């Protein structure tokens, strides 16, 4: 059927078939919108893809623009990495949880650090009070890192570390532990988040102002390019932007705009884009609007390929590939009727798989209440295993590709994200847009709009504003040992007492000098300090002294 006659046929259908039904059965809403407010039409047909070139816009998996996936065989070759984010209490407790997850068939590790670690304070710092070991594991010195990975061969497992402002310090500790295990550094695989820009707008664990922070980021790129060639030197994260309330379009736009800023900063620091480009990785949210999410992942992949090739000058096809981790949406979980969260998470995980994720974390059903228990985390992992091994969706590449709605939504999300990136460029790029508070304001507005929709009953959240029950039975929750802070302080003072104090002081002084000299490499000095059991807080104290602290935009 040619488009003209298809158009005629569609008009005929509207007149003869649709109109009669609408007259008798009006639709549920006047207008249907995605979770992000994109209007969804009643029906999509080949007419919606008119003028879209298959080769230019969709293409083949493993080839530019990678809309259908970054590998030619995708999950027919290997399933995604099943990687549950975990960490609480002390290093030895988290070590036990890691071993449990590996025994249950998890294929990669992901470390959650506590807030003092993420913000560069030792466990005995007064500002750490009440926070030690709460949202992740407490790491003060190399000794804790040795305990954390005790009995886990780092040459064989891939590890992701959610750490940003002090990323260099934790990566240095990881490398030294690997070295002590006899693991060759050029084989170490994993990811360090190292994405400071989204901390300023969404996640809040910044330490230093943007300029020295960007230096730390690109310094780590250079170290990885030289010493850890298969390590992902950054995970440019839209996850937290979305959790903070952004739309799907904003998630793609702000994440890729940050990506552009990192590439530009590294180029300014003298790095060739194709030396670090293939090791950039991404991290997106798997939210509850299923079709929008599938389209979002595809749009992000295509847009990044175009930005890297056409705008940033990358020549190596591996630099064009957007490889990404997904976590299901914590903000979609409800404290009410928590078992319903198993279903939400399954839908979100399925969207991530149909969107071509390289690795995936599925949230546990009790996470709107507390950190996950062993039982709830097992159900979350099983959800991935059921999708991978039972559902059949992993057996063909990009199985939703070519669906009229999916392709149309993919085009729209890409176009709207690009419009945002243009706007950010006009403000002077991502760093300037963040310093001006533009990105923060956009996210806050979206978060508020969503809250209003829920409170006005225009968005239904099952169990929250509809289908509530009285007297719910709550699942047993994980309790973090309240003594963990005290024990962690004892461990730290033991380490301090047992180390060579002079060597620590001189290594910290060497780091300070490198930090002051604006063009010196920092990573070798940090590795040296870490090796001598200088603590994270001591190293950050030195860097705070030179770089200062970020006071917040628009406070």
């Amino acid at each position, binding site marked *: 059927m040619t488009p003209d006659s298809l158009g005629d046929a569609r008009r005929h259908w509207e007149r003869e078939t649709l109109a009669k039904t609408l007259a008798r059965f009006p639709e549920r809403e006047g207008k249907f919108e995605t979770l992000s407010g994109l209007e969804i039409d009643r029906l999509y047909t080949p007419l919606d893809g008119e003028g879209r070139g298959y080769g230019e816009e969709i293409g083949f998996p493993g080839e530019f623009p990678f809309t259908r996936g970054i590998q030619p065989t995708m999950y027919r070759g290997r399933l995604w990495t099943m990687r549950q984010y975990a960490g609480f209490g002390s290093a030895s407790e988290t070590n036990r949880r890691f071993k449990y997850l590996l025994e249950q068939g998890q294929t990669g590790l992901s470390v959650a650090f506590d807030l003092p670690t993420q913000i560069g304070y030792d466990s005995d710092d007064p500002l750490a009070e009440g*926070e030690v070991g709460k949202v992740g594991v407490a790491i003060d010195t190399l000794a804790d890192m040795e305990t954390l990975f005790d009995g886990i061969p780092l040459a064989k497992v891939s590890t992701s570390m959610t750490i940003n402002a002090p990323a260099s310090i934790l990566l240095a500790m990881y490398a030294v532990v690997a070295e002590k295990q006899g693991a060759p550094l050029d084989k170490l695989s994993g990811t360090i988040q190292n994405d400071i820009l989204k901390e300023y707008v969404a996640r809040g664990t910044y330490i230093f102002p943007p300029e020295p922070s960007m230096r730390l980021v690109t310094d780590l790129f250079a170290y990885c390019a030289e010493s850890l060639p298969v390590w992902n030197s950054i995970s440019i994260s839209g996850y937290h932007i979305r*959790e903070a309330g952004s739309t799907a379009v904003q998630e793609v736009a702000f994440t890729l705009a940050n990506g552009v800023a990192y590439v530009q900063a590294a180029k300014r620091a003298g790095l060739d884009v194709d030396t670090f480009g293939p090791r950039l990785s991404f991290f997106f949210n798997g939210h509850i609007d299923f079709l929008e999410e599938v389209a979002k992942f595809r749009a992000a992949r295509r847009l990044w390929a175009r930005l890297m090739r056409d705008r940033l000058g990358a020549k190596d096809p591996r630099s064009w590939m957007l490889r990404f981790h997904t976590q299901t949406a914590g903000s979609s979980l409800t404290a009410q009727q928590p078992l319903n969260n198993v279903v939400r998470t399954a839908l979100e995980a399925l969207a991530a798989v149909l969107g071509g994720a390289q690795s995936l974390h599925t949230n546990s059903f009790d996470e709107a209440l507390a950190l996950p228990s062993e039982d709830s985390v097992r159900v979350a992992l099983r959800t991935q295993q059921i999708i991978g091994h039972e559902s059949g969706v992993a057996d063909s590449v990009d199985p939703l590709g070519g669906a009229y709605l999916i392709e149309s939504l993919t085009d729209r999300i890409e176009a709207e994200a690009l419009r945002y990136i243009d706007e950010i460029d006009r403000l002077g790029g991502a760093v300037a847009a963040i310093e001006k508070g533009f990105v923060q304001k956009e996210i806050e507005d979206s978060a508020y709009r969503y809250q209003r929709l829920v409170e006005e009953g225009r968005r239904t*959240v099952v169990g929250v504003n509809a289908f509530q029950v009285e007297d719910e039975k709550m699942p047993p929750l994980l309790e973090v040992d309240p003594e963990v802070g005290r024990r962690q302080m004892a461990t730290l003072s033991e380490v301090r007492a047992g180390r060579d104090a002079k060597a620590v002081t001189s290594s910290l002084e060497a780091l300070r000098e490198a930090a002051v000299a604006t063009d010196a490499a920092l990573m070798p000095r940090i590795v040296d300090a870490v090796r001598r059991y200088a603590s994270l807080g001591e190293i950050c104290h030195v860097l705070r002294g030179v770089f200062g602290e970020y006071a917040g935009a628009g406070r």
Partner: protein
Amino acid sequence: MARSGPIRVIVAKPGLDGHDRGAKVVARALRDAGMEVIYTGLRQTPERIAEAALDEDADVVGLSSLSGAHRVLFPRVVDELRKRGLGDVIVIGGGIIPAGDAPALIQAGVRAVFGPGSPTSEIAEFIRGAVKERRG
């Protein structure tokens, strides 16, 4: 201390937790409900929050924590307020707070705990009632 005028609220993030979507949404909703609201930003110590309540002549201090530090930090804020003679300031809390923790927080002087999914209208209503009582 009878006084009139708009209800004054400090919304604060004690501790190191950086998740402030909820705090910002609540702050904006209370503003839309006609209150004067100051959001302190991240990483506030209990001392600084109490100082802000003093400086701003607040009727209400709303605390948000998603990191699990509420058990230690919310009671500390209440103590710091009392030290400054602000024992009658209404302290409320929200975030990821297990139901089992609420009684201890109430015992420590927190007036109400609003968990995930709480409508902002419910928070506003609670505040209006409590402030009316306080202002006499």
